[in-house]
């Protein structure tokens, strides 16, 4: 008898593998089809995880070089063994991949390796494999880096984030096109390892997705760390020679050229649907390639769902995971809800940046009456002990209802600190509730309390 699955997931990244596990937990017969040889998708293999490993290694170096002396530690010149750093990264990634593999085994999820192409609403043909038949199909094939049209990736000198995570050694001079989150993170890694890092960014600020106040402060901090920025500039031409790459950039003051040993193009990502078979089934995409879905993640073919980087919304691993869980639950007969306003966004620079909810700019654009307040880490108990005083917590409040509309944090551990505000957004809490909560002392998180107090009863420590 032909095996028919309840759910076939195409893609084993944070969207796909999480959806598959949730589906299996709910008793659905699940199969996951992955085109690469390893599970885990972009995040695990060439994204979030490897970059965080390198960020950690390079941050450690930076801290030793910049903070050892003041802490009474006399460390001579620290030698960097880049291949060991890369080996560590590989081990971290391999551990994760093995982890997902065992989770799949534990949950009895069938794994199929091969490129998947939709044949009909219930059949997926797999390259060099058998057809897979399923009642429901979840498309979770993620995204790929967008190249500059005149500068295709060779992953040796013209790099996407994938190549930038697997270089043989730090380049002497690295040009980075795009100062978004991926750009500044990788730029930070190489800057700390000794590369000269120069950014060319089309918009007028660094990390445009973040709140404006934080964007500007981050730019100042990264500049102090040695990185250079050409904001409001665009790359119009590129020339390659044996030794270097020359980019011609254009901005307010005209054209100029920049030379580099390597160019990282981090201008964005686009949905990856090559050979997926969407056209043959008439599945609707928009002009940018995003698969169109209704509010239950269904495409125009009712039993085919799409999530993650394939659909609209922030291109974040945790967003894909939430959506994957929601689709699995929906297929199993539940009615889950995802509060997009409570999905945080993080930049793992040092100090980190994290935000949830509306930025001040988007809050103003809604026309609602808002009040904002911030509290600087230089007045925070813990920050003063560790001398990590850069940054602030900023809270945006709806004046009338006192509801939390957005919280933005620039500072050490921002990525962890944001979880409190995320809960506030999820529970639709008021700023008073944030302020009247007890936070441990001394911690960075007290800055959240103080910023909240500033909007309600009045801050105590400033």
């Amino acid at each position, binding site marked *: 008898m032909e095996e028919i699955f309840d759910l076939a997931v195409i893609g084993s990244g944070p969207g796909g593998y999480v959806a598959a596990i949730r589906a299996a937990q709910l008793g659905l017969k699940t199969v996951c089809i992955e085109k690469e040889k390893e599970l885990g998708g972009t995040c695990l293999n060439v994204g979030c995880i490897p970059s965080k490993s390198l960020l950690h290694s390079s941050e450690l170096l930076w801290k030793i070089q910049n903070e050892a002396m003041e802490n009474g530690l006399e460390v001579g010149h620290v030698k960097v063994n880049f291949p060991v750093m890369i080996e560590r990264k590989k081990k971290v990634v391999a551990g994760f991949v093995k982890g997902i593999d065992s989770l799949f085994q534990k949950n009895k999820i069938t794994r199929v390796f091969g490129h998947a192409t939709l044949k009909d609403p219930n059949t997926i043909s797999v390259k060099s494999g058998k057809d897979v038949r399923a009642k429901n199909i979840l498309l979770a094939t993620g995204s790929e880096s967008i190249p500059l049209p005149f500068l295709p990736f060779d992953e040796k000198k013209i790099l996407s984030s994938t190549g930038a995570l697997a270089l043989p050694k730090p380049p002497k001079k690295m040009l980075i096109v795009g100062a978004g989150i991926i750009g500044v993170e990788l730029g930070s890694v190489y800057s700390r390892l000794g590369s000269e890092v120069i950014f060319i960014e089309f918009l007028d600020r660094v990390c445009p997705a973040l709140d404006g106040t934080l964007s500007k402060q981050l730019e100042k901090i990264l500049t102090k760390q040695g990185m250079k920025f050409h904001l409001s500039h665009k790359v119009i031409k590129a020339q390659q020679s044996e030794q270097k790459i020359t980019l011609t950039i254009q901005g307010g003051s005209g054209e100029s050229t920049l030379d580099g040993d390597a160019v990282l193009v981090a201008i964005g990502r686009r949905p990856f649907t090559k050979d997926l078979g969407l056209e043959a089934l008439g599945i609707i995409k928009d002009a940018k390639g995003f698969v169109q*879905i*209704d*509010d*239950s993640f269904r495409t*125009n073919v009712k039993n085919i769902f799409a999530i993650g980087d394939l659909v609209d919304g922030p291109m974040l691993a945790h967003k894909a995971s939430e959506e994957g869980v929601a689709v699995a639950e929906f297929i199993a007969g539940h*009615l889950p809800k995802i509060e997009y*306003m409570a999905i945080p966004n993080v930049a793992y620079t040092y100090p980190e940046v994290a935000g949830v909810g*509306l930025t001040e700019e988007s809050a103003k654009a809604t026309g609602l009456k808002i009040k904002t307040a911030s509290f600087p880490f230089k007045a925070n108990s813990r920050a003063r002990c560790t001398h990590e005083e850069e940054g602030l917590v900023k809270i945006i409040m709806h004046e009338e*209802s006192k509801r939390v509309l957005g919280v933005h944090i620039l500072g050490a551990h921002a990525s962890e600190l944001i979880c409190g505000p995320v809960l506030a957004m999820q*529970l639709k809490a008021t700023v008073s509730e944030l302020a009247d909560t007890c936070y441990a002392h001394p911690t960075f998180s007290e800055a959240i309390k103080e910023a909240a107090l500033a909007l309600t009863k009045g801050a105590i420590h400033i």
Partner: protein
Amino acid sequence: MKVEIKVPPVGESITEATVASLLKENGAIVKMDEEILELETEKVNQIVYAPAAGALHLSVKVNDVVKIGQVIGNIDTEKAGKEAPTPAAKPAPAKEISTSEFPIRKKEAEYLQDLGKKPSEAPKPQKEMPAEAPPREFPKGDRSERRERLTKLRKVVGDRLMEVKNQTAMLTTFNEVDMSAVIAVRKREQDNFIKRHNVKLGFMSFFAKACVAALQEYPDINGYIDKDEIVYFNYCDIGIAVGTEKGLMVPVLRNCEKMSFSEVELKLKDFADKARKGTISMDDLRGGTFTITNGGVYGSLFSTPILNPPQSGILGMHAIQERPVAINGKVEIRPMMYLALSYDHRIVDGKEAISFLVHIKKNLEDPTRLLLDL
């Protein structure tokens, strides 16, 4: 050679028929005796079969009226050779994305709409000034109006009600029941019942069991139409409609035919507790082959309940009112209840519906009949 396809005789005194549906397309290669099309008459439907194998040529289309003996096409046997596989008609994908009736994604606009309203889940500490909107005042004298967004629940319920109205032939038949026998039994045995079963003997168990007996006697009412077929359930899952704060819910007594009176009452008590706590699950509410609704608790005397799709029958109970009735030529005061049975005339005939209700009436007016399976 070309073999003629003629309209076969359909039955006595029928001289013509209508082409109801084409089962094979014009030009299709058919095998001998394969179904080609379906004819419809007032009394019965008839399939027309291919008299030979070959390429089908039809000279009629759907809704054409044809006479018995009329030639409506032919089969070209020369083209019988290889059977061209008729591609299964692929349902064309929708041309655009429609609004989902199950919204999962809650985005900015909806989040901001909620400002000023707090989620009702956890009890909120009363430390701050109430941020609630001031109590709404009924406009005094001005001619303004108030608009409220139709909740998804209301919309879905509304759509389903319209669906029932448009897609079923719903009628209601009435009768009345003298409840004195049931009332007497309850009075006499209430204490014993509570002692033995730890639950009060209500009216619902009598009604549920009377319905089960009647459903077993008139199985059409325990069925439903699924496209071209009628599905008859071999079990009785009786849904009992209850009003709660959240709205109308219909928890289901599964296999009610196997339940005793006490089991029915205990299950109903369980549902009531769950409803109060808000812990009724989807599982409790799923399915059902027949529904009982009781407008009497609110004071309704007489009403036409609406079917609970896709079921074919629903029994409406009403308030028990003492009324003068004629018994053996004399006027007596009896506790009377009007009963209403709404049914889908597409599968339940008038006679059946009426008899069903009479069956229930008899079993309620003399509950010993339930004992004796009469």
